């Protein structure tokens, strides 16, 4: 392993601009003559729009234009597009309600975009917005997903009776019920997976620009997937033909899923730019982000686990009500189905699994992928069932898990996925050692002497990521393929540009992708540039989410490098006057096998472009190759997280005193970056478990609409983390990469809740387990409190 190759903890190339304040985030960009957009949003959860009076507002100084849903409808500009058609148990496609980019006749959640004011300055746009009079006729709103499905609930979309998007199921119900009928023990649990907001620290922003001379559009947008944005905006929203639209996603300040989707704001900015003849810039205020950036999670689940007399799991059945919010969103429908139910086997050998999911509309913000997207919800169900089953049957939680682990691969689960490779016992053993599990009993006694309650919780998780094999997801309803692309351009002077369809929003691709190239070609990492985020430069890519850029994006890069190496060898053969089959490439040098004749990389690169030494008709000049990599399977990162907490019974406060994570991500390009992903993912899940909660009142007013009301974890809520890794190479891609971006968020909530319930002696506690929730639970528990020895 070289200092800059695969496996090295190379310090990041992109850091220089970020630590000196020279990043280019979307709001940093300003276009000549730009106007500013401010969106008028519904203050009501459910209402018809009776009228919009813009006369007074239009007359204010600086106002260029005011547009409403009527304008967007007349222009046939659509919004709320979902790219995955889930088929219900009735064999019919889901009820995805169409609609324009701005609400036209009805508003369906607080924050729903009703109109946009475009003015010379942002302050003028906001001032004018206050003068726009929107008259609403209020309708009853439905917030609770159980109530939404009832026949007497207010109807949110005409096409969806009982506000039902779909009723979906997976698994063999009869066989699963039979397993339960024969079970020696059944564990039952009711879980609410609490709604969260993504809260990337950079608010969303967009600048739409139109050039009348060339009849072409440019959109700067905070997007995790600029090519998908371009495709949706052209083919589905109807803003511009694809070949007339350039989408640029510059530096992005965090995404976590929220910047995958194509929202009203960027759609309107690009459309309005042509209408007003000036660039139109919009930047979200944080309170807008809270209202409209797609929320996450929000499941109500009843789950059961069947055991035989020896403690082997014989079946699992799960019923989930998924709250999908008011409108369709890009991945919306697959998050509580194909990204959820497919993971219900966990790390365990479970012969029968049945899962039913009822997805409903409510008058709340749309719910879509947030870090983990469906897999945190699945892991929480599985690991809570496992923990409760172990406790209820008097079994040690570690031994119980181990006895049920899958140990032979490939392993076909009853929920579609076939796990290719893994060693769950290895990560469990390493985590137990790192966490000093043996010493826990003593630490617990010591804590009790100090009046504190210590608990320990496990989460042995698995996930499916490296999204995804295109035909497979197509057969499940995806409208798009989930391959990835990379083009390697070798310059005549030997430096390299990689044009990547992946797009980094914090994951360090400018470093990790460059490491792969430097490692392969034997060139300095400084001579490798990674280009991403511009549809004029990169032909097409599916973007970054679902822990896919390593497994899928880097695999495309490797395939492109294979092609570059093959062509370079042909050029080298001419230069060295040898047969192509005798050319070897190692450490940046091409040599003739068995001789000391060689030519360095730089010489081959230059000669490929000078093209003097070979017949340009037999061998094309140049050295540039691209590849599209379509995975043959999901990848299956897995591991063991152990959370140790100390609860103060006086205050209910939970301190996480230790966190151990041992993950199997297959091959890792940069361990420093991978550990950083684990830190961030774990923190995200701890936030959900301890303090985050997105709450609407019964009228659909969003109560947790700012950082004052929504509790984000701070540095002093989070522990120092011990990170370890085990490796079973992924068999389905060239380097053996599984991916790591979401794992921490997937594993952690279950570990936290298992630890707290262990500490306070209750069977369950709802997320977020805030101090007041824990304190109340303690009062109700019959556990005697510790006292000083």
């Amino acid at each position: 392993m070289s200092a800059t190759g695969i496996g090295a903890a190379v310090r990041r190339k992109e850091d220089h601009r970020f630590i000196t304040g020279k990043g280019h985030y979307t709001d940093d960009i300003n276009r000549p003559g730009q106007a500013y957009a401010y969106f008028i949003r519904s203050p009501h959860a459910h209402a018809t729009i009776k009228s919009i009076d813009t006369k007074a507002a239009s007359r204010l100084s600086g106002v260029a234009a005011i547009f409403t849903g009527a304008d967007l409808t007349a222009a046939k500009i659509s919004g709320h597009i979902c790219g995955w058609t889930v088929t219900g148990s009735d064999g019919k496609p889901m009820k995805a309600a169409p609609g324009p980019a701005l609400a036209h006749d009805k508003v369906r959640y607080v924050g729903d975009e009703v109109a946009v004011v475009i003015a010379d300055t942002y302050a003028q746009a906001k001032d004018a917005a206050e003068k726009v009079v929107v008259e609403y006729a209020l309708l009853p709103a439905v917030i609770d997903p159980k109530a939404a499905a009832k026949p007497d609930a207010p109807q949110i979309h005409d096409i969806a009776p009982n506000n039902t998007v779909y009723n979906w199921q997976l698994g063999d119900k009869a066989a699963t019920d039979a397993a339960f009928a024969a079970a020696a023990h059944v564990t039952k649990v009711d879980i609410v997976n609490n709604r969260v907001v993504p809260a990337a620290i950079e608010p969303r922003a967009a600048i739409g620009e139109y050039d009348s001379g060339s009849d072409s559009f440019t959109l700067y947008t905070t997007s995790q997937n600029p090519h998908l944005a371009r495709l949706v905006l052209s083919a589905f929203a109807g803003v511009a033909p694809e070949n007339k639209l350039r989408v640029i996603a510059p530096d992005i300040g965090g995404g976590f899923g929220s910047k995958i989707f194509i929202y009203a704001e960027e759609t309107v900015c690009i459309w309005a730019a042509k209408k007003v003849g000036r660039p139109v810039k919009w930047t979200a205020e944080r309170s807008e982000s809270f209202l409209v950036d797609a929320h996450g999670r929000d499941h109500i689940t009843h789950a059961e686990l069947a055991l035989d007399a020896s403690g082997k799991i014989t079946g699992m059945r799960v019923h989930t009500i998924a709250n999908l919010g008011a409108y369709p969103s890009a991945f919306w429908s697959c998050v509580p189905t194909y990204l959820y139910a497919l993971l219900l086997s966990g790390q365990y050998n479970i012969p029968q699994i049945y899962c039913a999911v009822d997805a409903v509309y409510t008058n709340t913000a749309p719910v879509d992928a947030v870090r983990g997207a469906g897999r945190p919800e699945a892991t929480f169900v599985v690991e809570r069932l496992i923990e409760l089953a172990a406790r209820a049957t008097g079994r040690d939680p570690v031994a119980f898990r181990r006895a049920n682990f899958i140990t032979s691969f490939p392993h076909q689960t009853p929920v579609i996925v076939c796990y290719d490779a893994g060693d769950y016992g290895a990560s469990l053993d390493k985590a137990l050692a790192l966490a000093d599990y043996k010493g826990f009993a003593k630490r617990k006694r010591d804590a009790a002497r100090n009046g504190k309650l210590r608990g320990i919780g496990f989460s042995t998780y698995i996930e499916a990521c490296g999204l995804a094999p295109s035909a497979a997801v197509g057969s499940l309803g995806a409208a798009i393929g989930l391959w990835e692309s990379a083009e390697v351009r070798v310059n005549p002077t030997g430096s390299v540009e990689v044009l990547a369809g992946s797009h980094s929003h914090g994951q360090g691709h400018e470093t990790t992708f460059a490491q792969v190239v430097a490692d392969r070609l034997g060139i300095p990492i400084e001579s490798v540039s990674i280009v991403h985020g511009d549809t004029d430069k990169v032909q097409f890519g599916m973007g970054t989410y679902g822990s896919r850029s390593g497994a899928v994006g880097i695999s495309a890069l490797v395939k492109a490098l294979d092609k570059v190496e093959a062509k370079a060898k042909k050029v080298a053969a001419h230069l060295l006057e040898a047969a192509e089959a005798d050319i070897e490439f190692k450490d940046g040098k091409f040599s003739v096998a068995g001789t000391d004749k060689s030519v360095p990389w730089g010489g081959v690169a230059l000669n490929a472009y000078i093209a003097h030494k070979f017949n340009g008709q037999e061998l094309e000049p140049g050295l540039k190759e691209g590849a599209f990599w379509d995975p043959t399977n999901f990848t299956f990162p897995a591991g063991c997280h152990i959370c140790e907490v100390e609860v103060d019974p006086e205050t209910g406060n939970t301190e996480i005193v230790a966190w151990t994570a041992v993950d199997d991500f297959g091959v890792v390009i940069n361990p420093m970056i991978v550990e950083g992903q684990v830190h961030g993912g774990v923190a995200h899940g701890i936030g959900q478990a301890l303090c985050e909660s997105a709450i609407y009142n019964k009228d659909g007013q969003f109560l947790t609409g700012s950082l004052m009301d929504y509790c984000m974890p701070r540095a002093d809520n989070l522990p120092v983390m011990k990170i370890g890794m085990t490796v079973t190479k992924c068999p389905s891609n060239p380097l053996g990469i599984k991916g790591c971006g979401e794992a921490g968020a997937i594993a952690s909530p279950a570990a936290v809740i298992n630890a707290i319930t262990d500490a306070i002696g209750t069977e369950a506690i709802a997320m977020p387990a805030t101090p007041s929730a824990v304190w109340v639970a303690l009062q109700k528990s019959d556990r005697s409190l510790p006292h000083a020895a």
Partner: protein
Amino acid sequence: MAAVSLKVNGKSVTADVDPRTLLVQLLRENLRLTGTHVGCDTSQCGACVVLVNGKAVKSCTVLALQLEGADVLSIEGLAPADGPLHPMQEAFRENHGLQCGYCTPGMILTAVDMVRRKGHNLDDKTIREELEGNICRCTGYHNIVKAIAAGARAMQAGGAAKAAE
């Protein structure tokens, strides 16, 4: 509109601003210093932290007109244009204390101020408590805390500490 004169990163600046203009808007829009970021609208996130007369201030919570005669340091002024990086900046890179980079300018300047107030030997508990006003969604704070401890020690050893004074 009203006028305000102040120093920003060592340069004298005069601007004519709408009285509602926040310091962060003056920096980002009038002066095109976009290294200071806006992450929220309620003063929690800390992405906007700058140093005003040597002390950390959330630039989203002070009006430009309040800063007549003040000496403001933003992230762009922490290290000289063609000189070495400030030890705290180096520490963030060396310790992978950033991922998307959006909270980073505020974190770095908060850290510089933390050293001024709490000294060069900062322990884990102190750093975490002192970061109450800075939110990061990417890193879980783990490496930010490591970076700040390392940067604080490096600042004692010399380096470009003068730039922050």
